[in-house]
């Protein structure tokens, strides 16, 4: 059997490091030994396939999971999952979770003194369409404090988990909102050195996506690693 075509490796400054002391929890959770570089085999280039509703039904409307509508600014978050060669990634699982409009997660560990919303859980999932597309209806999450440093606040964000074509394309990330003054002070956002890469984490307000008298639209594409170009690739 021939060796599978490998995936490209990201430029180091376009991804965060393991050790980033401004984010205090990395200090005891980052490996000290250099990672072992592994050329890709089938173990790395293959990955879970989410056909036939293996992961369960889609849940794309986070505003209708309870008796009444949740509090907060109603938003549409939509976009595509692409690889770095610009090709769509269809049929992959995208999971998302977030806090409510007051900045509190529906999670027992979150003890932030902000109200829970009985009408908001804050979780969804979808398998991407044939063009890599996805769309969620939710509410804008609030900012919340965390104990990284005194008086530290996380910018409003939505967590995304996506798989892609193979084991190496796995990505868990966070989507932020344009113009948030907390971004400049957030070590998690700032941990990626390359500005162009970092800006990929900020969605765009998209008037075309907004629905009149109903919801604001934000566009967010997720870009996963792609195969290395080979001389036989079509131009």
């Amino acid at each position, binding site marked *: 059997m021939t*060796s*599978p075509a490998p995936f490209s490796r*990201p430029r180091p400054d*376009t*991804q*965060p490091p*393991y050790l*980033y002391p401004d984010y205090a*929890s*990395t*200090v*005891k*959770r*980052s*490996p*000290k*030994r250099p*990672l*072992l570089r*592994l*050329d890709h*085999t*089938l*173990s790395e280039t*293959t*990955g*879970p*396939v989410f056909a036939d509703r*293996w*992961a*369960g039904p889609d849940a794309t409307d986070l505003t209708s999971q309870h008796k009444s509508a949740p509090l907060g600014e109603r938003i549409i978050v939509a976009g595509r999952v*692409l690889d*770095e060669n*610009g090709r769509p990634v269809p049929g992959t699982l995208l*999971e998302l*979770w977030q806090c409510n409009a007051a900045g509190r*997660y*529906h*999670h027992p*560990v979150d003890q932030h003194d902000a109200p829970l919303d009985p009408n908001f859980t*804050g*979780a*969804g999932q979808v398998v991407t369409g044939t063009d890599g597309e996805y769309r969620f209806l939710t509410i804008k999450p609030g900012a919340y404090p965390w104990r990284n440093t005194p008086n530290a606040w996380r910018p409003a964000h939505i967590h995304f*988990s996506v798989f892609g074509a193979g*084991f190496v394309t796995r*990505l*868990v*990330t*966070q989507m932020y909102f344009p113009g948030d003054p907390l971004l400049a002070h957030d070590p*998690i956002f700032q*941990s990626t050195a*390359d500005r162009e*890469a970092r800006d990929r*984490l900020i969605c765009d307000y998209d008037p075309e996506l907004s629905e009149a008298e109903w919801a604001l639209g934000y566009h967010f594409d*997720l*870009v*996963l*690693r*792609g195969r290395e170009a080979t001389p036989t690739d079509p*131009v």
Partner: protein
Amino acid sequence: MAEKLIPTPSQTVGPFFHLGMAHPEWADLTAGDPAGERIVIEGRVIDGDGAAVPAACVEVWQANAAGRYNHPDDTQTDKPLDPKFHGFGRVASDAEGRFRIVTIRPGPVPGRGNALQAPHINVTLFARGLLKHLHTRIYFADEPANATDPLLSSIEDASVRATLLARPAGDGSPKLYRFDIVMQGENETAFLDI
């Protein structure tokens, strides 16, 4: 070819991933009753202070009992696909950092060129404090094919190599293996740059 896009940076999974990355049923890869020897893998996730890491997320991806991945890129048509085996699993560690996965022993899979890889399970680790996930592999300490596995053979330090080996624990059925993931320090797990 058009200019490449920069891949989206990773961000930490944070402490509340259970909300969106739920599916506790995915800790059992044998729910569909696949072919192969049932095994259980138990372990702990440990940080650089030797303390338990609760709310870590461990994901696994593996070949079926015949050594074929359930994925279109695996074109080993001489090996059967098992419609009852998907190959992906996920488990969150508990308050003591413990996790438990029920699965089947994977078959050997091809490496690069003509090499054969010893049976292994591919692992990703997510946790608060990890800005991007860590990769490693679970091999089986009682597997003779480890001697010729390309990755294991490339690791000169036996103590580092040993961190990739799940060790049989007890004589029960299904067979129990122990595999701890040490994020930092003495006995730090060999993590992979893929």
